């Protein structure tokens, strides 16, 4: 991935910065110029909550270019209290303990790297809740 493309989305993929539509209250992530639900463009900043629930998952056994030697890994859709859903990887999880509805939490991890000499791409992934504090 080109350096500018990775760097540009650090606030969204690392600090989980999203937009909240002031008109309809829905959370927009990834960010858009206008709300995809009500069409207005009046937003406020919103940070995606730490914890959510896994509403679906899949285990990748045929990786795409850039993810060789990392299989099997888990991808999933996580839903948050406010109805927001995002896609991400689920890490530190035993494949046998995966269940729709399980609670997961944010964790900062390596996603990929551009070979041995390119940059490393980091982002937030999710893992089973470590501890309910």
């Amino acid at each position: 991935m080109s350096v500018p493309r990775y760097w540009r989305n650090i606030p969204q993929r690392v600090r989980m910065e999203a937009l909240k539509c002031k008109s309809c209250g829905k959370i927009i992530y990834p960010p858009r110029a206008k709300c995809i639900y009500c069409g207005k463009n009046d937003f406020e900043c919103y940070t995606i909550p730490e914890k959510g629930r896994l509403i679906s998952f899949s285990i990748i056994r045929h990786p795409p270019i850039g993810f060789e030697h990392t299989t099997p890994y888990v991808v999933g859709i996580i839903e948050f209290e406010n109805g927001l859903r995002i896609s991400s990887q689920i890490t530190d999880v035993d494949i046998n303990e995966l269940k729709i509805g399980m609670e997961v939490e944010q964790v900062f991890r390596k996603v990929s790297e551009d070979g041995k000499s390119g940059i490393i791409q980091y982002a937030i992934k999710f893992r089973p809740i470590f501890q309910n504090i």
Partner: protein
Amino acid sequence: MRRVAIISYGMTKVDRHWNKSIKDLFSEATLKAINKVNIPKVDAIFVGNMCASDLCDQNNIGTVVADHLGMIPIPSYRIEAACGSGGAAILSGFMAVSSGLFDIVVVGGVEKLTDGVGKKATFSLGKAADFEYELFYGITFASLNALIMRRYMEVYKVPREAFADFAVLMHRNGAKNPYAQLQFEINRETVLKSEDIADPIKLYDCAPIGDGAAVVILCPLEDASRYSDSFVEIAGIGSATDTIDIASREDLLLLKSILIAANNAYKMAKVSPSDIDLAEIHDAFTIDAALSLEALGFSKRGEFDKLLYDGAFEPDGLIPVNLSGGLKSRGHPVGATGVYQIAEITMQLLGEAGKNQLKNAEIGLAQNMAGVASNSYVTILKRCR
């Protein structure tokens, strides 16, 4: 707006055409179409293609095909809507003729997936999804469908076997289609024992990787009888978009863009789902078939398996689905698929479908889409007398 007819069609077999390039395939299909009719000229070419830039290192495809066909200097350009490029090309051709700007146009789609060796083809296909927020995480295109499939099975309690049995039906149809890539029958075991791609999707839930080109020739309906004895009308056409990333969908299990596109097409053609005699739907993955059938109004939500087992989708059923074998068996040369569907329905409506011929086919529907229905095209064709 002028009414638009399809007066001819041409297709290559879908296959791994190692010895043929984009130019070869598109010209082969175009010449097949042109040689069947008596047209004085071609005013423009609209070509759908998704992956040429990545896999063939070639842009400017419109020029490339016009050049190879010896048709310069007519206007010619590429339309790209991922796996919906074919359907989008049809829409472009339709707009060109119905607007009155052009009279006779060649509308086609072509794809050379096998020019991408190894993982390059699937990586290129994956770009139908959201690169920054899906592919970035290593979420493959197959796994996006897998996420929806798992959720669908969980919510509606539809058994895994139903998806396998749909693939079996596809192969049974495709085995009789000389243009199909995979002309052999399979059984449920074949699917369920095939390789894991992205749980729960297995190899035989997925359309194969192949190359091909399909072309139709459009002209104003009022002129059609001048060029051909038999023709069909594009009676209705609709298109719609949805979010590029599936997580942002309001309802993960509703392919809303298909619903909207279909409603627009039904309205324009003045028909309803029960009037449709046959459908060519976009079964890139077996889950796509289920959701497409539901969005098109052929099945209630979560009940595609009921209709499947009632025989509704069989060649002699209520709504014969994918008599061509569909994407699963006929194949999915992505940019061309949408045009294959149109050509196949045209073939059926004109009584030229051979072993797969449906009797008295009057109205057919084609549904083509990008990604998991982030961009959809629904076209309704009517037989003309």
